[in-house]
């Protein structure tokens, strides 16, 4: 997908003007937050579980090489095959190689942000292999030629009437006069159309929420059961996961699962939690003949040992964006790449470069609500600030900002000069604004006054007034 993160400001402006999008975003604000809060309130040990989840992932990241090797051994022992992919291109060519050598023509897919990251669908399409998204939200945006605008609710930017129009446009084999006014009818129709695709598919591709070193299992959580059908019905199952998905044991995965769905949708658990360990064994009633795992790095190992390592704890629950006032205002597409919201603001610059993704960590008020709800306690604002530091070090932020900041800092570092300058400037500004008490426009304050009035200062600074008061007191006492 084309990276438009450098155009964040224009993207945001379009998003703010998009009536359909603004309507859909109202649902994010209303839906996720209350449900999460209820789930959290119902579990007194939730805070302790967050600490525990953080510690598990920290331990896994500190020993990532060991656990990845152990995981590979277990996968191999259970009859599966692990492929190591350093880059997105490596991962794509591994998939294509498997497809080509097995003569695959259709691929079903479970919901996976990693396959978005490596742009797998476009790649398979170009190679003449048909990818079919089976998650309802993913299916909808595939029909629309769009990308997810949210990591767990990919079509959250789409309204029901738009889905109905898309289904009528694409499902031309169905009766044109069918009634699709109720949401369930849309769900039924998607289910019916997709059911046939599962049986046609040669390969099923899923992501993974966890990779378990102890057993060589991959775990996915879904609410629609589409993941199960994707990985069980086709002859070949390919798991594509990034390396930081590893946890040491099944118990560790179970611990983190306790905070995952609660943080994401407010469910105690997702409807389906599905483990897959190797291909079908002789006594298994079903399962694939071949089981492949593609382990993708794509820039993550470079985050280890840096100030961005904590980001690798992320379990992709979406709570940060669900609680983000910036995301609420503009939705996910404005961020211009795969990962939106606060987690995207930290991860995107790491994966595509801060030169391209620099707006994202800047477009935050540092309100801290994301960190306060993150089940893995990732210090998101702190890491956004680290990106701003990288930008500043490399001189990537706009010259006007840099010089403005430097000029201000010049005074702020010199108290006597600062006092002198403010004691001259404030009376001028205060006198100018005295009649009305505010300014509707001021030179160099256009960013502020574009949308709001600027309250005028009093005619003397606090410290001018204080000094005078103290001098009078001293005089009185003498």
């Amino acid at each position, binding site marked *: 997908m084309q990276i438009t993160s450098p155009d964040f400001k224009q993207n945001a402006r379009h998003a703010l003007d998009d009536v359909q999008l603004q309507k859909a975003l109202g649902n994010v604000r209303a839906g996720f937050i209350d449900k999460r809060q209820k789930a959290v309130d119902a579990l007194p040990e939730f805070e302790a579980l967050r600490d525990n989840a953080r510690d598990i992932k920290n331990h896994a990241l500190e020993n990532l090489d060991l656990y990845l090797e152990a995981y590979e051994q277990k996968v191999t022992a259970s009859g599966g095959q692990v492929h190591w992919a350093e880059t997105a291109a490596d991962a794509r060519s591994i998939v294509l190689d498997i497809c080509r050598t097995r003569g695959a023509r259709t691929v079903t897919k479970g919901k996976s942000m990693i396959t978005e990251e490596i742009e797998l669908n476009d790649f398979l399409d170009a190679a003449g292999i048909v990818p079919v998204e089976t998650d309802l939200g993913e299916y909808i945006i595939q029909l629309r030629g769009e990308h997810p605008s949210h990591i767990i609710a990919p079509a959250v930017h789409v309204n029901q009437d738009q889905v109905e129009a898309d289904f009528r446009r694409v499902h031309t084999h169905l009766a044109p006069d069918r009634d699709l006014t109720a949401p369930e009818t849309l769900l039924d129709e998607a289910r019916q159309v997709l059911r046939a695709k599962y049986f046609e598919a040669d390969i099923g591709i899923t992501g993974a929420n966890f990779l378990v070193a102890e057993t060589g299992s991959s775990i996915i959580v879904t609410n629609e059961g589409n993941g199960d059908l994707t990985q069980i019905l086709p002859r070949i199952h390919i798991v594509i996961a990034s390396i930081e998905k590893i946890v040491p044991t099944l118990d560790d995965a179970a611990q983190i699962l306790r905070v995952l769905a609660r943080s994401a949708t407010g469910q105690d658990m997702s409807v389906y939690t599905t483990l897959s360990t190797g291909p079908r064994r002789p006594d298994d009633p079903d399962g694939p003949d071949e089981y492949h795992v593609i382990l993708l790095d794509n820039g993550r190992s470079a985050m280890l040992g840096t100030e961005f390592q904590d980001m690798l704890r992320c379990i992709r629950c979406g709570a940060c964006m669900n609680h983000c006032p910036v995301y609420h205002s503009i939705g996910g597409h404005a961020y211009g790449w795969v990962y939106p919201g606060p987690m995207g603001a930290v991860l995107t610059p790491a994966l595509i470069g801060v030169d391209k993704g620099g707006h994202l960590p800047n477009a935050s*008020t540092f309100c801290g609500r994301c960190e306060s709800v993150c089940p893995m306690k990732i210090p998101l604002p702190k890491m956004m600030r680290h990106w701003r530091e990288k930008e500043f070090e490399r001189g990537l932020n706009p010259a006007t900002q840099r010089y403005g900041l430097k000029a201000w800092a010049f005074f702020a570092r010199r108290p006597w000069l600062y006092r002198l300058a403010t004691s001259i400037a404030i009376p001028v500004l205060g006198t100018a604004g005295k009649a009305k008490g505010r300014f509707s426009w001021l030179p160099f304050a256009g960013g502020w006054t574009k949308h709001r009035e600027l*309250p005028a200062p009093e005619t003397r600074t606090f*410290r001018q007034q204080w000094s005078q008061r103290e001098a009078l007191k001293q005089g009185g006492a003498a």
Partner: protein
Amino acid sequence: MTVASDKPKVGLFVTCLVDLFRPVVGFAAVKLIEEAGCEVDVPMAQTCCGQPAYNSGDRHDARMIAQNTIRAFENFDYVVAPSGSCAGMLKKHYPALFKGDARWEERAKVFAGKVHELVSFLADVRGMDRVTAAGAGSVTYHDSCSGLRELGIKAQPRALLASMDGIELREMRDPDVCCGFGGTFCVKYPDVSNAIVETKTKAISDSGAELLLAGDLGCLMNMAGKLKRQGSPVEARHVAEVLAGLTDAAPIGGRD
């Protein structure tokens, strides 16, 4: 001559916005701190807490400014600021700024241990549970982000307001959601900031309160500026002005 007393000595960190835009908040803070049994002084060597540099990625200037602040306040028992944001910077971020710096890390930690936001200082440190000022009609209180999430300020201002006669607190919807100010954010991304503050002013208006209160002047200037632009009759003041009974000055953004 100032007579030495055994009262705790408080250095008031005025904050640059209060110093430049709304001195009455500084005088309200002084009055309240004195009522809480402390002696107040205002070191003239202070400037700004350094957040504009720190949050713009300019650690060098942020450190220089922080050193200046620490030097100016080291001799006080407490450092109090009428802002959760600036107090959060002094208390939480100065130690982080000097992490691994042999000369300054310990100094920053000791300094941070003395720092408090004004209202939490009154309530939590000095045990103040009521104020003598008279009420201000119907008010609604916005929880500024840094004060709320970095310093745990939520109950204290509401408790002190509730102790006043003739005041009615009308909670707005989502009082703990950001107003869209975000320091330089509001001028770097004015359109996004505007969308956020519009949601906030809608919640403020819907509360039916006549007066908006908060503990941070940055947020207040943003919200008051938007309310004024919208022609709203809701007035805005720093919570310290009301708690100290210093409400003769025009509200933030003037009177119509």
